[in-house]
């Protein structure tokens, strides 16, 4: 008998394979996010995600953490010195919000040309945490979600367009400066008087341990699943009452998706979730360790 956590892990693995992301690097969005501007799109690349299978923010953000590192490095004499250039780039950037090289409008163009994907999913699996339950913010441990996970479940996922959207930080960022800091654990270019060190940056719990490399973005998502569990009248009412806030697996609210919940005469659940054409939905992210992000090794 699978737990709801196990069900989620299994689905995550299957979807990441289909998205072309190694499952060691993939993190899922709960809830799936609908970007509506450059800032909301780029804001996701600015997140340094916490460890674990769900894309959630850790204590730090890319731009401020990067700025702090550059501020703690000593510039060299050559006009090409990466630290010198990085400091100048940051000063030129000033107080503008952080940006990435491809904007939302171009992303939408790419999404419209991206291939389609369709694949089934059936339940049974392996453990881990910390997902939400059947509806947004519901406790995952027991209740109706546990009931759902315990029985056979069949799902079909289809996407008219599925895009692995990769973009790189804009003019404020210099990969060679960060790589130089990474490859010199002690001494130069680190400023010995600064409290910001290799360990506080790249060590365990550091501010730049991993970075988002790409986002998996879908257009016209359609997910249908059927459970063999028989829900009683209480369970049915609970699910229906919470459906508008968004249901598993992507918890899309009624503003971003159409969700239909129905029960047959035996109380068996069928859920279908569809999103409108032309509306991007971010489902997952590919996250790399600092050294992989910097192309080292």
């Amino acid at each position, binding site marked *: 008998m699978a737990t709801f956590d196990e069900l989620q892990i299994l689905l995550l693995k*299957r979807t990441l*394979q*289909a998205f*072309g*992301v*190694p499952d060691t690097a993939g993190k899922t969005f709960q809830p799936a996010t609908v970007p509506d501007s450059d800032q909301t799109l780029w804001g996701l690349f600015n997140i340094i995600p916490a460890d674990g299978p769900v894309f959630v923010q850790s204590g730090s953000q890319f731009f401020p953490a990067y700025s702090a590192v550059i501020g703690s490095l000593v510039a*060299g004499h*050559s*006009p*090409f*010195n*990466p630290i*010198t*250039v990085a400091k100048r*780039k940051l000063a030129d950037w000033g107080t503008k919000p952080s940006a990435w*090289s*491809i904007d939302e409008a*171009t992303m939408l*163009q*790419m999404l*419209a*040309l*991206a*291939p*389609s*994907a*369709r*694949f*089934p999913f059936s339940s049974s699996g392996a453990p881990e945490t910390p997902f939400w339950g059947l509806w947004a913010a519901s406790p995952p441990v027991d209740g109706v979600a546990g009931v759902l996970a315990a029985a056979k479940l069949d799902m079909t996922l*289809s996407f008219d*367009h599925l895009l*692995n959207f*990769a973009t*790189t*930080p804009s*003019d404020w*960022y*210099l*990969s*060679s*400066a*960060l*790589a*130089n800091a990474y*490859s*010199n654990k002690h001494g*130069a*270019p680190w400023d010995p008087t600064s409290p910001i060190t290799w360990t506080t940056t790249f060590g365990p719990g550091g501010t730049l341990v991993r*970075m988002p*490399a*790409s986002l998996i973005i879908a257009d016209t998502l359609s997910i249908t699943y059927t459970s063999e569990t028989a829900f009683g009248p209480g369970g049915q009412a609970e699910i229906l009452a919470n459906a508008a806030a968004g249901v598993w697996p992507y918890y899309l609210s009624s503003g971003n998706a159409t969700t239909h919940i129905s029960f047959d005469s035996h109380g068996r659940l069928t859920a279908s979730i569809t999103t409108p054409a032309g509306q991007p939905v971010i489902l997952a992210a*590919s996250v*790399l360790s600092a*050294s*992989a*992000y*910097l*192309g*080292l*090794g």
Partner: protein
Amino acid sequence: MTSPVTFDQLQDGFYNALAAGLGYDTTTPFQVVQPSPPLVGGLGADGRLWNYLDIIPPATLNMNTSLGAGGNKFSVDYQGVLSALQPASEQFLNTVKQPCYDNWASARAKGAVGPTGQNFQLWAYGCAPCQTVARQGAIALNRDNLDPVFVAQNNAMAYQPTGTDPITFSIDYDTMLRLLMSAPTRSFTVGKSDWNTDVSRTWANGKSGGFFGLWGGSSSTSITTQKFGGSGVSVTASFANVLPFAASPGNWFSSAAMGLAYHNPNAAPWDPTSTINWENSFGKNGNMQRFTTTLLLVNQMDIQVTSTAVYTEAEQTEIRRNSSSGLWPFYSSGGSGGTSSSASFTNTGNMHISITSNAGVPIIIGAIVEPVKTYLGGEAEAAKFLTETFYDTTAKKRVLEPS
């Protein structure tokens, strides 16, 4: 030549067949890119195309989902290396003095003055600290421009990230599209027992980045996939146009200076006090271990795969149900401008896979990613000559200070 028995061997076999069918031998550092991404035209198309050549990808044989992702740029790392190199002997700075030099360097970075002595001389008349040294400075600059490190630094100064000029490669998107549409047709066939599954001699020693199974989204160890891999499989592939797109870096790059740096580990021209060195640039944890030199672009791909394995009714249903997410080997499934896949069965349960892509949409199906050893290997003789000429003391006396 064998019949592939596992799915992994079949993948390796397809890899070898594709490389050979496109005219490469198995030692060519050739990567298949999957899912095969379309190249979108319009505003910013050049930058997106060139980004594939500027981003330094991970080392894998078969698949590369990270092409174009991450934060490691060739152009940026290159300028980092330049910062750690010293010209053999520089006279320009001593001739014009620091205030003039700083003004000149800042003007170079903004593209306000060209790299030559003549450019300097003209510009210097309008710059107070340089006015009095316009002619002497021009002579010194022309002399220093003969030094491979100095001239590389001088040329790079105008380009990002140090300067403001954008990083370019030699061929733009529109030209690429024109070249692709008139590029030759390529096709190849692999019979049931013609599979060469040996990838042990390939450049990454068979280290694959991981594969999906038979269709995008399946596990490569599922029973149906294993059956596909172990069956008698033949492939016919044709491409209306195949273009090995090899664009070279623009004026921002000097292969002579890079070659000199690569072939002189821990010696001049490296500045021993710099935190950037041979090891963290070209060594096994360095940021410049490989370069994307060629993109394999195709127009109208048509791949037909026939398997003589006997599939049960249930297996056939499973394969049909999954075919829309893209079938082996490219997984780039149907969409506007993308490719489409379909699977059909003959009465005996034999399987036929068809993968096609639309006309007029360039698709990247592969890339050649060269290790630094071969990328800069050709610079060995030049590096030796330059080292002897500029850094060997006796030779330097002979060349630069004739008696």
